[in-house]
């Protein structure tokens, strides 16, 4: 599978811009249209914010470009606890065709999204 992987510390909020740029760049080489690329940027950063809210230290973002575009956003490290993500999840759900969630001690640990 062709994949592009990024790992960064969620406390460094300025890296969200770097993440958005990287996601945009991978979308561009995957021939996604401008709106789809922008939607993917919103969803991936929102996913990272959900993980941050759940107490994870860092996020590993894997962008898969084989057979459609999908992203896996997984939390690592930290003191995790469940938190209210209803609004964020509603936003992500409204923008993608597929959203799968994996939990650990009721907190969201991983989001898998596909356009």
């Amino acid at each position, binding site marked *: 599978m062709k994949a592009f992987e990024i790992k960064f510390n969620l406390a460094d909020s300025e890296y969200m811009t770097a993440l958005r*740029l990287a996601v945009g760049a991978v979308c561009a080489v995957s021939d996604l249209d401008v*709106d789809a690329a*922008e*939607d993917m940027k*919103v969803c991936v950063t929102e996913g990272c914010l959900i993980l941050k809210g759940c107490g994870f230290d860092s996020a590993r973002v894997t962008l898969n470009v084989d057979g459609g575009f999908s992203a896996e956003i997984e939390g690592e490290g930290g003191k995790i606890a469940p938190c209210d993500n209803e*609004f964020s999840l*509603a*936003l992500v759900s409204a923008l993608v065709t597929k959203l799968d969630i994996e939990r650990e001690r009721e907190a969201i640990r991983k989001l898998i999204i596909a356009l």
Partner: protein
Amino acid sequence: MMTNDKALELFREYRRTGDKAVRNALIENYMYVAEILAKKFAGRGVDYEDLVQIASEGLIAGVEKFNPDLGYRFTTYVTPTITGLIRNYFRDYSQSVRVPRKLYALNARVREAVDSYYRQNGVKPTIKQLSAMLSESEENILEAMECHTPLSLDATVKNDDGEAPVYDFVADDMPAFENFEDRETLRAEIAKLSEIEQKVIKLRFLQGKSQAEVGKELGMSQMFVSRAEKKIIGKLKEALSK
């Protein structure tokens, strides 16, 4: 902000009585949802105020229709509605505005700002400094810097006889007088528009105001301006294609 239980109580009251004051209290309480969602879509070439207007219309429609007894939260219910409206707006808007052109324009502003900063300070500015100087997000600055600069027709290229301007090698399928004719046709077509349509053109395209600002100035909603703009562009396109 009111509690979820209080909001549900007000939704029930509004459905029972249709009291506009109750509806307005609910809209005010949930305005943050419209603002957050507008922010999520900012930076795509549409003014933030315009996005807030569109999101607010979705919010109002959501408050009107929400059934509090179906067991889910209002934010969960209204988010797809607002997001859908904003995405539809982008779909329609992108037919009349080319985003890459905006990036090219920003690319030129970035280069100008870099040169000016270098002349004044003897060092080149950082992305953060450029962002502050041009009131653009760092992300937009970086994207604009990635845009390949269009080559000027006056730039020279090498050929067998030495150097020649680029325009010597470009097929001339749009003679200059045709541009002039277009301009004249456009001027004549604009004169045929209604007074209000001419005002919209002046404020939007000559003064560069946002749809929300134009609406405010003319005493209309942003959506009205958006529809008028689409209609005007359609009319002008049709006139120019004849």
